[in-house]
């Protein structure tokens, strides 16, 4: 196998429409979002979080943008701020949402429309492979 250039490897990820690839840059930025979310794996932490979300967030090294996005359940913003979907899943599972329900909120579609799209075979890759190529 030829050696890949790390810079062009990473740059290509920014060319995918509507997608935030979980790179090291995002992982570093969102470290505490993800570690906070991970804490909700424990029932006693879920109870404390549900009782007072704002107070619970004080226990983590989060900036104001990150806290606001968590409280607003703004998942696209959380992806931009370094959240990873499998960690963010701990937040929406605690809210009682399924993956399908939570994921639909990132698409600008209603849950019903999103579910109907999935039943009809999902979102076509045509037109959303590359920003540059427009294909």
């Amino acid at each position, binding site marked *: *196998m030829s050696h*890949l250039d790390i810079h062009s*490897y*990473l740059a*290509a*990820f920014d060319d*995918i*429409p*509507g*997608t*935030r*690839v*979980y*790179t*090291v840059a995002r*992982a570093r930025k969102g*470290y505490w979002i*993800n*570690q906070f*979310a*991970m804490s*909700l*794996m*424990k*029932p006693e932490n*879920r109870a404390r979080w549900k009782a007072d979300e704002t107070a619970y967030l004080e226990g983590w090294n989060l900036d104001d943008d990150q806290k606001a996005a968590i409280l607003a359940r703004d*998942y*696209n913003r959380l*992806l931009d701020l370094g959240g*990873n*979907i*499998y*960690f963010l*899943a*701990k937040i929406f*599972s*605690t809210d009682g949402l*399924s*993956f*399908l329900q939570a*994921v*639909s909120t*990132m*698409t*600008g579609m209603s849950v019903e429309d*999103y579910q109907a*799209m*999935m*039943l009809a*075979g*999902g*979102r*076509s*890759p045509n037109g*959303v*492979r*590359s920003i540059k190529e427009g294909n």
Partner: protein
Amino acid sequence: MARITAGVATSHVPAIGAAIDLGKTKDAYWQPVFAGYDWSRQWIAGEKPDVVILVYNDHASAFDMKIIPTFAIGCAESFKPADEGWGPRPVPTVEGHPDLAWHIAQSCILDEFDMTIINEMEVDHGLTVPLSLLFGQPDAWPVKVIPLAVNVVTYPPPSGNRCWLLGEAIRRAVESFPGDLKVQVWGTGGMSHQLQGPRAGLINAEWDNRFLDMMSQDSQRLRSIPHIEYLRETGSEGIEMVMWLIMRGALGSEVRQLHRHYHVPASNTAVGHLVLEPVA
């Protein structure tokens, strides 16, 4: 001599586990997903493997962001189902095979694969959903399981070629184990799905089916598919398919496809499933 007798590929969608646990497998939505596993359940009941090396990815259950192993092998006596935020799945504890697991770990390290060794770990839907699909709801799993967790979450994950080569190293390791064991390798995850961002819900049935074809024909070409192609064509979580290549690499150059199933959707995901056997 221990030997690899078959390979299984399957998606590991968490909603499939929930459908099984909540008794919804006959619902109109789920019936076509599960029907594609009927053949495999009968087949595996006849095959009676001793050990499954189960390649999967942890979804922020056993590993948080503190430690991110690329390839981690579970060497424990047993692995409890993880609480993923809604309580652990009501499935049996997974029994390991520490003798074979340690043998594979040592052999692979000598073979230049620097494995992370895990002595205590809980296992999430990535590992338990495939077991449920193949074995249903028994009181105890009828097979020992060696979990092999692959990082496909934080970039870069291993290349497809690296996965294939690890599969080859696992085969060499299994074949040098002094014990008469029937071993299967399962590659799980995929097929196309994207769980994040405005492009979520992407499914590429054409690409997925070509990938399924190539698992048994022209499989060398699978090794050079770059990450960016999985991402563009199959969605951000379609990258999980590199894990299938560990299974495929472990089966040797020629395989026979015994069974194939493809269905859209299960929740956000395209479900793909193969049963392959090596051709000696």
